[in-house]
């Protein structure tokens, strides 16, 4: 299949060509830029290009690949950094230097590398598609290889292998491979969905204690600029109690990624003691990289995340920021001259988002294991105004909402999670788990904590009228306790040893504050002067 370019407008080109399918991948121009077919007409196709179109000329050739946009899945993805099209950035750098100068296809997977394969099935056994053949040691992980065929096993490797050759064969002559390609926009299959019931411990007191999130859940955190979205995303990526982390830098800053790599290379996973990079996959399409690849980046990431989920792992996908993804779809939609919806976003924004969120969850995999894919996504509302379409569309599907508050951030209260507006729909299911595992008092302490914060708010309004001096001693004591909760418990400085708070520490910290409060209250009742009481 081949054709010629007729029109070019921004990142889209029209091609005179037939025989293509919608969402097929094509190579465009002499530079072989990657593109995707987004619209078909008789003898004409409109192609969305994932790279810079500068220099592209009319009449240049277009070739069809006969396949949609895919990612390569197999061992070797962990600790790598990819762009939105899954090109390995470190290898790209070795190839073309520190700047990304043009379209060049480098595969995400190194097909030459040697791996050790351990078969779990034997010659002569019957196997079905999706069942486990064996595993490859990928760092500390057992990277399970699922069969891509059904049939009776004719032979299977035991020992060293590379990914460009088969690791086995079934009797009808079909080869079994250790890696494969998967279309990014198509969710991977599983047996069935289960409902989230286990907590995903983040190590952030405010989240674990007040707005706990579940493995398999979806969390959004909208906030204006500088409210701490990135720091919170990165903190969760460092400390979350999961097996694998996929972090997407979607249309954000390059320096942030340098920082992240630096940090992650020097830190260990607090749960296993292994290097943090060993469990992490980075997908990075910074704000100055091509917009269409930014749009694809979250799909590239979620497909890799699902792939590890299918091995029975708990995977966490973090994306910073979903708004940049939405803006990329808006730019693409407008270059296709589609009818715009609210604020210029395409009318399918909400359904696309919902479809993406739906890829999270706890599942029983085809091979019968249980794996989960959780999502923590930041949103950057223009002007910090939460009524805008992206935040609103996310709110309809997300299971937890962590609202980052500009006024808290200006006071350097971090994480700037607003404790009145935020919520988690998972709390009910997973609090019993905390009660059992951490402390039987968990729930009771949590209710008390909320109540004090509520009452402080009411008292603050009174104080604004009569002055602090005008409040009763008991109320002033409560305000003191509440201040302690805010500053010592809810605040968590990401640059200190306090950045990670395991649940045991979380609960003992809040219990200590209440102990102080109860003692002080008792003393007040005995007639000790408030100043005296507060001194201790």
């Amino acid at each position, binding site marked *: 299949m081949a054709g010629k370019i*007729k029109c070019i407008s921004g990142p889209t080109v029209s091609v005179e060509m037939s025989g293509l399918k919608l969402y097929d991948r094509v190579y465009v121009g002499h530079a072989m830029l990657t593109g995707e077919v987004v619209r078909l007409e008789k003898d004409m196709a409109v192609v969305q290009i994932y790279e810079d179109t500068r220099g592209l*000329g009319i009449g240049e050739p277009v070739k069809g690949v006969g396949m949609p946009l895919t990612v390569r899945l197999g061992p070797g993805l962990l600790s790598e950094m990819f762009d939105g099209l899954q090109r390995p950035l470190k290898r790209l750098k070795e190839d073309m230097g520190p700047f990304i100068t043009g379209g060049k296809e480098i595969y995400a997977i190194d097909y030459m590398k040697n791996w050790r394969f351990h078969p779990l099935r034997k010659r002569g056994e019957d196997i079905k598609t999706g069942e486990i053949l064996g595993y490859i040691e990928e760092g500390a992980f057992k990277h399970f290889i699922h069969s891509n065929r059904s049939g009776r096993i004719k032979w299977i490797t035991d020992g060293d292998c590379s990914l460009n050759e088969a690791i086995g064969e079934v009797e009808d002559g079909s080869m079994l491979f250790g890696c494969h390609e998967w279309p990014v926009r198509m969710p991977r299959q599983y047996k069935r969905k289960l409902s989230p019931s286990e907590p995903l411990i983040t190590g952030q007191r405010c989240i674990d204690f007040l707005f706990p999130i579940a493995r398999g859940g979806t969390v959004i955190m909208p906030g204006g600029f500088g409210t701490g979205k990135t720091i919170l995303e990165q903190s969760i990526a460092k400390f979350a109690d999961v097996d694998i982390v996929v972090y997407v830098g979607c249309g954000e800053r390059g320096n942030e990624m340098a920082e992240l790599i630096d940090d992650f290379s020097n830190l260990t996973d607090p749960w296993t003691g292994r290097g943090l990079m060993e469990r992490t996959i980075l997908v990075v399409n*910074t704000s100055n990289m091509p917009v269409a690849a930014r749009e694809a980046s979250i799909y590239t990431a979620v497909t890799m995340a699902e792939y590890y989920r299918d091995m029975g792992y708990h995977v966490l996908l973090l994306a910073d920021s979903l708004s940049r993804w939405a803006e990329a779809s808006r730019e693409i939609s407008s270059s296709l001259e589609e009818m715009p919806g609210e*604020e210029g976003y395409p009318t399918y924004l909400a359904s696309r988002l919902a479809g993406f969120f739906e890829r999270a969850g706890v599942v029983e995999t085809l091979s019968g294991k249980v794996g989960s894919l959780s999502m923590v996504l930041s949103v950057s509302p223009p002007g910090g105004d939460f009524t805008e379409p992206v935040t609103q569309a996310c709110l309809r599907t997300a299971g937890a909402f962590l609202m980052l508050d500009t006024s808290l951030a*200006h006071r350097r209260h971090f994480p700037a999670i607003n404790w009145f507006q935020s919520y988690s729909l998972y709390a009910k299911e997973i609090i019993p788990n905390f009660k059992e595992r951490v402390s039987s008092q968990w729930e009771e302490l949590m209710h008390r904590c909320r109540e004090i914060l509520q009452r402080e708010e009411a008292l603050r309004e009174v104080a604004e009228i009569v002055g602090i001096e005008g409040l009763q001693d008991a109320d002033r004591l409560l305000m003191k306790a509440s201040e302690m909760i805010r500053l010592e418990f809810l605040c968590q400085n990401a640059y200190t040893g306090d950045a990670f708070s395991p649940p045991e520490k979380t609960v003992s910290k809040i219990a200590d504050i209440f102990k102080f409060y109860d003692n002080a209250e008792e003393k007040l009742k005995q007639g000790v002067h408030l100043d005296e009481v507060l001194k201790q």
Partner: protein
Amino acid sequence: MRLLEHIYRTISSIRGPLLLVENVFSARMGEVVRILSPDNREMDGEVLKIEGDTVLIQVYGETRGLDIENSSVVFTDSIKKASLSLDIIGRIFNGSSIPIDNLPMFIPEKLAPVTGFPMNPSARARPEEFIETGFSSIDGLNTLVKGQKLPIFSCAGLPSKELAAGILKNAALKGEKDKFVVVFVAIGLTYHEYSFYRSILEEMRMKFVAFVNIADEPVMERLLAPRFGLTVAEYLAFEKGMDLLVVMTDMTNYCDALREISTAREELPGRRGYPGYMYSDLASIYERAGRINDQKYGSSGSVTILPVVTMPEDDITHPIPDLTGYITEGQIVLSRELHQKGIFPPVDVLPSLSRLMQRGIGEGHTREDHRKIANLLYKYYAKGRDLRRLEAIVGREGMTEDDRGMLNFADAFEREFVNQGMIRRSINETLDAGINLLKRFSLELK
């Protein structure tokens, strides 16, 4: 592919800075064209969109005087490039990179596309080298580091140019003499503003390169000037190992130019009429700040960007400062209230922020007690500011003694720490000033 330049006299429409040319044979995206007007003026343009043999061209320069019958368009088969050489240092150009200092054009060592290429995120080095600006509110609380992009958010009438000039002077004094170069990009400035900056650059005998677009010069060149400036900066930093400080002022004029041209292109307007791609467009400028970590391409240089943004209506949620803040690594916010109190620089430290500060301070960078002092100053000043609201309602009398102390602290902080007039402080002086202030109010250095 064409090997020669092609001339066309087939303009079919002229609309503001846009031309439509017909019957063009194999044009390419971004191709540079030369336009010849009937009175023999020459200007540059760029291919924006191609539909079959009809080409949409964006003109850099004044389109007044062009006509359909006699103007011609030359397709050059190359994309917009900047001429580069070490000889560029000390030169002044207009927004189209034509010398305006009455000296001949230098002989380029190489050419590079003005839009640059995105830096591979895995090639970036983490910015962590402190730049001393001489202003306590910045050095102490919102520290600038090499490779950072840190805008000044100003309001109309506030002394942003005095602040920018002060930073330039001090950074030049402290930087390594022959490694430090300033790129100055004037975007839609009045002549008066431009002369102010120019006299600073000359008086300081700094090494600089300037790209100047004055208010009455073509709007299109406002989009080009920063890109020329950054292409030069990248060359000097990443190929010649220098430390570049790029001052771009005023980016609000840049954004307005972007809106004007987007409207001429009949694109769908976004918030307040600015195009939906303004975030990506601004990012393509600001993301060119940085450092490279790879020894193989070895260079110790850096590009630091210091843009000035005037917030329309003093509103920080206006799309221009809003999108800027979402891209840059913090912001220095000037406040009208502090300015009216006679404080210079009138930096409001609460909404100000330097996101790259944490790595650039402390032992080996500034001083080991820096972080502690900064945190305490913030904490108490934020508290004092909070209490001012209360004071407005209940009056000082209704407040506890501690609270009154905090109010006094906030006042003293503004008057003595933030305010420093024309005097520059070294980082040690800044930190000592902070300590003294805390001590005087018996605020513990816990």
